[in-house]
């Protein structure tokens, strides 16, 4: 698993779009954290989610998942390594970008840091199931805007609302979001064993 983790980290940082996106998320996050901690939490979560989806789904998009599974045939270990990589990156991004909130002594900084890695794992799990980043982004954009924001008013137990509540320091919703992540991981654990066909 350590080998996959090192390979994934190397790959993410060796691809220009990977480190440019990371740097951009941190820079924007710092700006948002200076003005509105709630918006920073949402941005850090969405950034972690998006980055996790892109880095995971790229393997299927460019067919390098074949090489990954040749290197580590035990696919659950691959999934675990991808989750740890994405969670670690998300934690670093959130910790760095939230520096203004930390300086201001805002308690939301710690709560966001606790839930952002879960959001990254949620992203990895979703990308493992769907395998197409654009489908995921389009689907979740619609879901977030119409279902969670317009209908649900970003409250309640749906994934992104639960994430926001957890990031604001609500321990109950941290558990709820952990439940969403666990459910997505169960689906991913089944989906990662699908054949890699020549499509």
């Amino acid at each position, binding site marked *: 698993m350590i080998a996959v983790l090192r390979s994934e980290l*190397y*790959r993410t940082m*060796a*691809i220009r*779009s990977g480190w440019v996106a990371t740097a951009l998320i941190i820079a924007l996050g710092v700006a948002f954290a200076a003005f509105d901690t709630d918006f920073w939490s949402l941005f850090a979560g969405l950034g972690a989610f998006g980055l996790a989806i892109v880095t995971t789904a790229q393997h299927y998009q460019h067919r390098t998942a*074949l090489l990954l599974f*040749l290197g580590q045939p035990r696919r659950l270990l691959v999934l675990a390594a991808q989750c740890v990589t994405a969670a670690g990156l998300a934690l670093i991004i959130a910790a760095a970008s939230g520096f203004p909130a930390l300086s201001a002594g805002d308690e939301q900084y710690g709560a966001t840091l606790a839930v952002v890695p879960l959001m990254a794992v949620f992203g990895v799990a979703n990308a493992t199931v769907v395998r197409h980043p654009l489908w995921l982004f389009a689907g979740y954009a619609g879901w977030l805007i119409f279902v969670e924001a317009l209908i649900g008013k970003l409250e309640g137990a749906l994934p992104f609302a639960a994430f926001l509540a957890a990031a604001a320091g609500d321990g109950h919703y941290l558990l709820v979001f952990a439940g969403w992540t666990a459910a997505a991981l169960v689906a991913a654990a089944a989906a990662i064993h699908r054949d*890699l066909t020549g499509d």
Partner: protein
Amino acid sequence: MSSMIEIRELTKRYGRVAAVQDVTFDAAPGRVTGLLGLNGSGKTTTLRILLGLSRASGGAALINGKSYRDLKDPQGTIGAVLEQGLSHPGLTGRGHLMSQALLCGAGRARVNTLLAYVGLAGAATTRTGDYSLGMRQRLAVATALLGEPAVLVLDEPANGLDPAGMAWLRELLREHAQAGGTVLISSHLLSELEQLIDDVVIISQGRVRLQTSLTDLADSQVHRLRVRGGDPELLCQAFERAGAEVSENGRSLLVAGLSPEDAGDIALRIQVPIYELVSETPKLEEIFLNLAGSR
């Protein structure tokens, strides 16, 4: 360096359709085995199951008696060249190899050695998205060699390689086999493989039609004589009287069932001059098409 590939009664079904059915063959150490078949015949499916990328519906595909997923050091046991250009286009050649090297525990030195070996040292810092098809195939070969495996599996490696690249690949695979390695190579470009393989497995419509050595295959085929003489009609009658099957091919006769000595003696006996007498062995492509076409 002695590793064996064993495919035993391998079956893969997609719903009611059998992509491969009861496929059985071996690829032995020290030999290059060609898995030959038309597009859609089941070659790639067989190789994907061997490499643990697809699950078999029945049977087994083993490397040293183990399935790929049970190998302790997969990349140190078997190297694979699959599809074309399996790399992120934003990674450089060196970056791609490094990310793979980290998976199998190979170091930077091995990466640099392989880049030079496959002729990509000068393009190591170029993004693979800018590589030509041939360069991507060379990079794929370097990726397969990272773990110094005894077994090499290559799926249609000739695609995208120019004649010089193909000659390079032939030499590389021959050297690997001569050092005791096992090479299994699939292709539909039969003329390219004829100069490379020792053993041949012909697969058609998901079933193995033939497994033999190339030498035995050539020996088992009916040799044909191409004869051009002074009086084709007289020659034809004489050959047929001797029990041969004769057909015309332009100014020449194609004669099956006679040795060159017999044909020469007959021509001498009937006093017809011979201008050309060639013993022809059917090419692999011809044999394959006969086998595939007869099913």
